[in-house]
């Protein structure tokens, strides 16, 4: 669902047409949940965040937003990052963006993609997921995570290269 369609649906929802809500949910649930769970690494907590976002969307759909898709994904990302910060084991982390779930993985072993994603820092993971799964533009991602455009592009390419190496099981 692109921005134009999403804006139309949200306008209809705001005008009282509740039937469009399920359509919005069905279109966005998968990319949003993918991004949230990759950040949270916890299915139950990720589902809670997904629920929270859609309840907010239903009760007060965003008004006058040119880019509702980026707005919604930003909300998902921010809540997921807050969720990570609230977890006791990460409470003392100074910079949660640099968190790596599987820091000492052996790259000679061929990995599945979800394990490979855990070897990225949380920031790289967000950039890759927001761009590939969330289909957001680099400029939108740069604004969401408050980094320069060039840095986002560079980190994206670096992360994809790293994932490629892991998925190839050390053959590259």
């Amino acid at each position, binding site marked *: 669902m692109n921005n134009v369609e999403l804006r139309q649906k949200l306008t209809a929802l705001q005008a009282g047409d509740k039937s469009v809500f399920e359509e919005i949910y069905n279109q966005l649930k998968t990319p949003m949940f993918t991004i949230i769970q990759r950040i949270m690494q916890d299915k139950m907590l990720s589902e809670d965040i997904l629920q929270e976002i859609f309840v907010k969307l239903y009760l007060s759909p965003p008004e006058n937003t040119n880019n509702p898709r980026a707005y919604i994904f930003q909300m998902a990302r921010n809540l997921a990052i807050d969720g990570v910060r609230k977890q006791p084991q990460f409470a003392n982390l100074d910079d949660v963006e640099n968190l790596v779930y599987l820091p000492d993985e052996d790259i000679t072993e061929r990995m599945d993609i979800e394990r490979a994603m855990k070897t990225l820092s949380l920031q790289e993971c967000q950039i890759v997921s927001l761009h590939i799964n969330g289909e957001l533009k680099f400029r939108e991602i740069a604004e969401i995570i408050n980094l320069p455009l*060039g840095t986002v592009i560079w980190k994206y390419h670096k992360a994809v290269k790293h994932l490629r190496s892991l998925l190839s099981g050390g053959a590259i």
Partner: protein
Amino acid sequence: MKKTVLFMAVLMCVSMSMTAYAQNEPIRGGVPSVENTGRPTPVEDTDPIIENDGLIDGQENSYRLADGEAGRGTIETPDKYWAENGYPDNISFAYEAGSETLEDGTSIAYWEIGIINADEASKQEILALLSPNCRITFRDCKYSYREREAAFNEIYASRNDIVRNVQMALNSEVVFVEIADGYEKEYARKYIEQYGSFVAVTNDITAAMDATEGLGLDGGDKNNAFGLWLWPICLVFLIGAVTIVFFNRTRLIPTLQTNNGNIVTESTPISRKQTISVIKNSVLTPSDDVFGSIMEKVDKAHK
């Protein structure tokens, strides 16, 4: 192994002879890397970037240079024209992404022009300036060439042990600055405040430039001739590297085993496209009852 060594030896001989040949050649103009003043001037590139994966947001994989609009004026090389006459305030970059000769013998050059606030009038103004042999694809930008150049010059002049290098991407509005380890965050903040978000800080400028596919403007003091004879040598080594990679890919790679010796899987190289496709397809879905829970919460909120 013997074959590889032999192959590398042949490559060395070829490259050395080409170097010797090139050193006797007169310097031809038009392809400077960087002037000794540090002022950025474009480096030629002949590889068309047809598929641009993530160079500038919103345009990745979504346009083809061949779809560019033909000019109606007389200027064949806008980058040189603007370098001589000054870049207009609404231009961020002009980049020749490739060229081809049509069946009727006409030579066509594909240009990417970075333009600020790209409205139709500005585009028409540029199309009226450039030759019909130019096919122009416009790219939406935020920062002008002058702003980028001013930042480049200032940062170039401030090079020290921490600020190691600076390069201006040719086909995007990014200016990369290589900063020593541990100082990235501090300098990123400083540069964003000072210049804007087009300045990107990295600790490996080569990797950053490779990632954006842009050809860099080396901040070092290289003379013009160096750039000329480096190309064929790079080409020879590139062919060598591709061949070695090919051998590596086709050789037997040990299978992976668990601790008790069971074979798990074989290592197989996959491409970048495959990697992106895997990420795209590896979606995670919430449980079916999540929507029901949302509607319950909505109902409660209404009551």
